[in-house]
């Protein structure tokens, strides 16, 4: 049939974030085969059926069928005993999108009961003294999101659960948190870092963890880009990617953050958006599209940027051809695959390719490099015991490689590994892989001979 007008695909009027019934289709796909048990880190640690994906799906079915109440304490306790690491999805024969099920359930719970229950739940787990340190660190990572109105940034919804949690346990002073005494990344650099003969300009989405906890890694990322003659835009109006609140079902806040970020990066006029964190990159590549699917203005914006978002390693190896590093870095390095980097962004070969190209580095693969480290953002805070069992296993795998450095592509994993490597008595330095490339570039500038 001939037609002169092209019709755009119809937008749904709501997404699974707004209506739990939409995930019924995903639930129906599950055969209860139990393949998820082989890879679920929480099941590996807890060894009970309620820990594993298929049982959460069975419970979701019971909720939709009216046999269980969503806000039954046991139901939400179970829902939050999940790292949203997506490991189960890599081993699922029927390709159930379990992340959607989990996010839809958590959003439905917030719709039903509001957010204060979350505060209660997180607190009940904070009673354990050992949790306090972890709690501070994770809380601090989330703190800017809840408290600090950034210059030029859109206001963050006061409904953010972390505002309530954070203020109640006294996250009011930066000085209590060593990680925050340093100047954040975005205060260290101008909004545009220019180079002499720019061959391209890209926008860098820093994310909160690189901005507040690992600004040096962020600086290294910028340095690597400029060393490749690329102009870097780091808009100060950018906010948190929103994944930390999305996983707690706070859909309104994550949408507000997404809209702000989409508008902010539209204004850069850049062709590519670079991330150095799998969760942030995953938000730009997938979550924003799904969150904004029903939004006629921001839906198309989300799709536009999803196609232009790259992890720094993919950008360096696939979009451009990075300048080969020549400075010698004498280290034995292993690499941990962050869940959101590998399982969401499908990035795993590129960081290894970069590491192996650095002179002096001996690369040693650990066993099960893509097994989750147990961080899961705030999971380490709310489920410290289980998280530690998972993290300890990872630390042992790292130790067995006899590497002196463990490299990672996601700041949340860096925090978790730091804690667990040291608790397991390991001596490995935990670094972002991009810092090793920056180190090589720096050594070459300091006129160190390549070969001795």
């Amino acid at each position, binding site marked *: 049939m001939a037609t002169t007008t092209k019709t755009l695909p119809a937008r749904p009027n709501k997404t699974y974030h707004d209506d739990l019934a939409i995930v019924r289709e995903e639930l129906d796909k599950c055969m209860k085969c139990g393949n998820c*048990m*082989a890879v679920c880190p929480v099941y590996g640690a807890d*060894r009970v059926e*309620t820990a594993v994906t298929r049982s959460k799906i*069975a*419970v979701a079915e019971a909720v939709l069928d009216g046999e*269980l109440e969503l806000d039954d304490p046991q139901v939400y306790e179970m829902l939050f005993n999940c790292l949203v690491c997506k490991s189960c999805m890599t081993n699922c*024969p029927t390709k159930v999108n379990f992340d959607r099920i989990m996010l839809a359930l958590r959003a439905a719970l917030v719709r039903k009961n509001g957010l204060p229950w979350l505060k209660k739940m997180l607190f009940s787990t904070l009673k354990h003294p050992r949790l306090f340190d972890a709690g501070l660190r994770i809380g601090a990572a989330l703190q800017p999101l809840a408290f600090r109105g950034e210059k030029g940034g859109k206001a963050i919804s006061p409904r953010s659960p972390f505002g309530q949690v954070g203020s109640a346990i006294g996250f009011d002073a930066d000085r209590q948190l060593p990680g925050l005494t340093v100047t954040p990344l975005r205060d260290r650099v101008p909004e545009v870092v220019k180079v002499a003969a720019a061959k391209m300009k890209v926008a860098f989405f820093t994310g909160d963890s690189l901005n507040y906890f690992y600004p040096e890694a962020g600086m290294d990322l910028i340095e690597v880009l400029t060393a490749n003659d690329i102009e870097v835009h780091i808009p100060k109006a950018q906010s948190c990617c929103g994944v930390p609140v999305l996983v707690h079902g706070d859909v309104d806040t994550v949408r507000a953050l997404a809209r702000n970020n989409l508008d902010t990066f539209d204004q850069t006029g850049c062709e590519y958006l670079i991330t150095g964190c799998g969760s942030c990159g995953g938000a730009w590549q997938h979550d924003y599209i799904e969150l904004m699917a029903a939004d006629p203005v921001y839906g198309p914006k989300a799709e536009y940027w999803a196609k232009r978002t790259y992890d720094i390693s993919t950008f360096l190896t696939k979009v451009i051809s990075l300048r080969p590093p020549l400075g010698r870095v004498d280290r034995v390095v292993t690499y941990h695959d962050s869940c959101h980097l590998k399982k969401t962004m499908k990035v795993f070969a590129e960081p290894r390719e970069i590491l192996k190209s650095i002179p002096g580095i001996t690369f040693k693969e650990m066993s099960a490099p893509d097994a989750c480290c147990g961080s899961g953002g705030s999971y380490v805070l709310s489920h410290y015991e289980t998280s530690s069992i998972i993290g300890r296993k990872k630390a042992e795998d790292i130790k067995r490689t006899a590497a002196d450095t463990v490299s990672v592509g996601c700041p949340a994993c860096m925090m978790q590994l730091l804690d667990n490597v040291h608790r397991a008595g390991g001596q490995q330095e935990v670094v972002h892989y991009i810092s090793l490339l920056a180190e090589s570039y720096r050594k070459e500038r300091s006129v160190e001979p390549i070969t001795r």
Partner: protein
Amino acid sequence: MLEKTIIEKLEAVAGKENVLTGKVDLVAYSYDATADLPRQAPDVVVLPTSAEMVQAIVNLARSNKIAIYPRGAGTNLSGGTVPLKKGIVLSFQKMDKILDVDAANLTAVVQPGVVIAALNAAVAPHGLIYPPDPGTVATATMGGSAAENSGGLRGLKYGVTKNYIMGMEVVLANGEKVRFGGKTVKNVTAYDFSNLFVGSEGTLGIITELTAKLIPAPKYRRTLMGVFKTLADAGNAVAGIIKAQVIPATLEVMDRMTIQTVEDFAHIGLPTDAAALLLIEVDGMSEDVVSAEAEAVMQVVADNHGDLKAANTDQERDQLWTARRNALPALASLNNTVVLEDATVPRSRITDMLIACEAIGKKYNLTLGTFGHAGDGNLHPTILCDKHNKEELSRVHQAVDEIFQVALSFGGTLSGEHGIGVAKMKYLGDELGQSGLNLMRSIKESLDPEYVLNPGKMVPLREV
């Protein structure tokens, strides 16, 4: 609902942390991996940590007439672990220790909750393997797979679970604990109890420890694929390989429907006009022997007009396996419910069985693909249907009835590896006759007269 005092007694026996009664806990133990079966939540889930604990629980259950449903990982495919009569689900997920690996005697002693893959990881440094490899090796437990007598892809050459269980410790329905068998290769002391309890599906006793046989890991292997234009060619190739005195470790078949679905699903370049595909893997300790066997297989494939692919690297092997690995996922992607059968026929009737399955699918207007272990005659006719469509489900049930009839008419059996459970109980008389059913019942009742252990499975409950 159980009385509160029973729960308290269970907590006293097993520890509060190992007794689960929350609504969510009960939902989590209300199913296994079998499609098209109603769920049933138990009254309580108990996770024992020792055989003595199991004895105490059995005694408590028997004196209070409470059913016990033993459970490993719950990946079984015939409803064997669903707690039909509520009562106690006895989950062995916490009894997961490998007690002994004895390389000199080629044995391992394990608790029932040890995952098969974990045992293989533990014996690998000794250059040994535990060969039974059901599709769920990465999740299924030793206790569960022994109770179900699981098979797998290597059955033709290496046998199934029953060939690798040398001894056991079992808690009986009367609360007694009995040990038999052990590390000796030869043992004719008393009845062959291992072969009684292997495959008993938890209806005769509760396995609390296993002694497993290990073998040296084969050092060499070759992987080949043959694609055939007709089912007859494929069937003749299977017969030809055996006739050439080659026993492959793996000899898998996929029918036309499965090939087309896998190609649509994974785009791996399979010819969609092919009628059948064989995946063949030969292995052994000597390179010469393995090469000679591979040559012989290639000749047979060529003689039967097959299009041959041979893997020379691990990567190429992986590519050949992609088709077989994707068979179930690809078929499953077609609808929300996967009815996976395991009717098994003598190897010589494989072609007839493939043709019959295709015809049955057409007759009942169902989406049906068949793949499986051609080498040992164990096929998986797989029906994809919509669980919300009652009319279609009734056609599925008729088709399944007919698949079993045909398998039996070919001199085959109801189940090659999934077991009877509840799903196939009604067909049992068709294969065994009344005298066989009577034998089943007398064995069941001599060991478990009160039907405490996994009631409603394998042997129907007596009408009250």
